[in-house]
């Protein structure tokens, strides 16, 4: 447990999941018979128009909500079992840091919640901090950091429990385009170090392709997965691939699918 290592765990299987929300005088089918398979250690991006239920799917996988029908399994465990065992990691668009805690102490939060002795994880935390490039800022408060740095803290916090599944809900959605590209490169590097099974919800087609092994395209009302597209690029990927015709071709195809699915 003392240093970072590749994770084990089982494949992630979503089968015929349904979830509806009752509004005042309407029923929204956020997810309609959604099925998805993610092999261990692979990276999948979820793209789709607003309201297609991609964040809902992520919350179901995080064990924060339950489906109305269908099943979600990670290996042979339910998301809630994974959650209570502390085997999941999440990062949101909002870094959601505790404003009164330093960078170091924000990262230790999940360990404290799990009741693990923080001092046993000193090396892990130090490695994580250098992995996300925050050396020298261990004792800074979130208010003293830039937006990108805060997001790095949130990602380090998501990784500190050495999760088997990493759930990212538009983690760079609030950053500007240039910073977003830098963070994409960083995320690839961080992810490659341990390769947790990862689901990334994003609005950006480029980000989805650049990071993922597969891109799942969703449509809205009702929320469905309409196609899963393979991304053929070798890893590690360099930013230059974004200028290749293959990349453009893939991006065009995904945006066609998005528009066909009643998109933006």
């Amino acid at each position: 447990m003392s240093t970072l290592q590749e994770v084990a765990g089982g494949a992630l299987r979503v089968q015929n999941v349904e979830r509806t929300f009752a509004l005042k005088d309407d029923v929204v089918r956020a997810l309609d018979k959604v099925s998805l398979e993610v092999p261990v250690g692979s990276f999948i991006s979820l793209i789709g128009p607003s309201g297609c239920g991609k964040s809902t799917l992520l919350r179901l996988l995080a064990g924060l909500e339950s489906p109305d029908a269908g099943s979600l399994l990670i290996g042979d465990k339910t998301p809630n079992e994974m959650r209570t065992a502390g085997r999941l990691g999440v990062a949101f668009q909002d870094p959601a840091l505790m404003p009164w805690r330093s960078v170091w102490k924000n990262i230790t939060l999940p360990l404290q919640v799990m009741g693990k002795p923080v001092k046993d994880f000193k090396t892990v935390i130090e490695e994580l901090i250098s992995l996300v490039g925050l050396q020298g800022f261990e004792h800074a408060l979130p208010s003293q950091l830039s937006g990108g740095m805060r997001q790095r803290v949130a990602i380090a916090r998501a990784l500190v429990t050495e999760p088997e599944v990493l759930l990212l809900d538009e983690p760079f959605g609030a950053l500007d385009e240039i910073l977003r590209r830098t963070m994409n490169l960083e995320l690839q590097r961080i992810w490659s170090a341990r390769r947790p099974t990862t689901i990334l919800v994003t609005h950006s087609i480029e980000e989805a392709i650049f990071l993922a092994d597969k891109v799942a395209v969703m449509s809205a009302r009702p929320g469905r997965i309409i196609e899963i597209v393979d991304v053929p690029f070798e890893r590690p990927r360099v930013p230059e691939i974004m200028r290749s015709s293959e990349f453009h071709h893939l991006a065009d195809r995904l945006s066609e699918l998005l528009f066909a699915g009643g998109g933006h």
Partner: protein
Amino acid sequence: MKNFSRFARGTGVVLIVLAIWEILGRLELVGQGALPAPTQILAQLWKDRSDYPPHLSVTLKSAGTGFVIGNIIAIIAGAIAARFRIAETLLRGLGMSLFAVPLIAIVPVLLLAFTGTTPRIILAAMAVYFPTYIATMNGMRNVDERLVDVVMVAGGSTTDVLRWIRVRSALPYIVSAFRVAAPAALLGTLLAEFGGGTRWGLGTYLLGSLGQANPSRLWSIGLVATAVAASAYMLFAFIGARLTQSSMSATVQTSLPMGGATGPWWKRLGGGVISAGVVLGLWALVLSILDMSPVVAKSPFAIVRYLTTDPRASVSRSRLFDAYSETLPLALIGLLCGLAAALLLAVILSLRPALGRAVLPFALVSQTMPLPALTPLIVLVFGRSILATVVVCVSVTFFPSFVTILQALATTSPAAIDVVRVSGGGRLKSLRFVGLPGAVPAMVTAARLAAPRALLGVMIAEYLATGDGLGNLLNESRGRLDYGMIWTVATTSVLVAVLITQLFGLAEKLTRQ
């Protein structure tokens, strides 16, 4: 340099005012010596210096104990209300009663039930409860939902969320409530000291000095009480500033619980009835625990009997009615004058900021002076008259109203002001067309927040000085051992005060639509 010149100007204003005060005092120009010069007050303070330690220590001990007890109860209640909606509904009546009740009406009841300094501690605790309760509840509720998700995903339970997030998130709210609660505890203690109990205490000292025709002594007691209240306030302001690393609002939200009830009318009514039942239940419980004689301790039913079937019921009813018809109009006039003064200063401040800044420090000082210590001074200056009562009332309602109105004026939409400007209007025009209409709901909010203070102000003036109305009825009933009336005044004043704040709350809802 800019800071320095502002500081220099501020000091200049203070020195000028002190000089004018000195001249007025030395020449006895106000109320034949009712306003002594600052140097005379300091000289008196020095002469009486050995009187203060025993009085002050008793007062501080009672206020401090009440502060701790009241806050512990308020924090526990607030935490439970934050967690369970049903608890919030049940506790609403208690919070509302403690917010609205004119504390002085409770003093005789407490003196019947307890001895020594206990009534003082209880009244201090009652004065402290509401601000801390509201702050705890709001602080624990208004947390970052994403942070809650982070803790949940790390395998946490609702207890973990409470432990790692809610408590710490609520802390700055609670400390800023302490700033309000600390002077309130002093106010509660001083009021209870007026009722007696022991021969020590700042309030007792003040009461004993009332008949001595020594204005300097009254003023110096007032200043000492102000100093205590101000230092308690500043202590918690300092802790709060250290604690709040990210910027957050320093004001305590007092507006939520009143308009907080939502849902269909029958549900709100039901909630109201149930929460009123909780208050009555607590009352009955306390009486049965204390095991007091029914001659002295009155249950809710006994009060109803006192006003209906008792042989002297009609006499009691008319005395009660007369007292209310003296007190309530005065409180209303005082409240309206206070609101008008607040609006005037707020308007001046938004038109001529420099002028406003010069007046503000004095408004602030008048605000920190505890009401029980302020009242005798106002009576000294204005005489035992209706005018004095109204001035007391204005002085307690002015400042909270001013803050509320000023906030409303400051938050008027810049775009709307630009529209007026572009059409050729100046500051006055934008105030007339944009600022003032926007301030109307704030005026109603201010009225709701200040109404209980207005009632308390009038009753204290009546109790100490003018010999009219409810305050006097309390005094008389104590003298006549009319236990029924003592309990009736306490109960009805809570009911009337809650009713008035509810009415203003309703008006607030209408104007905000």
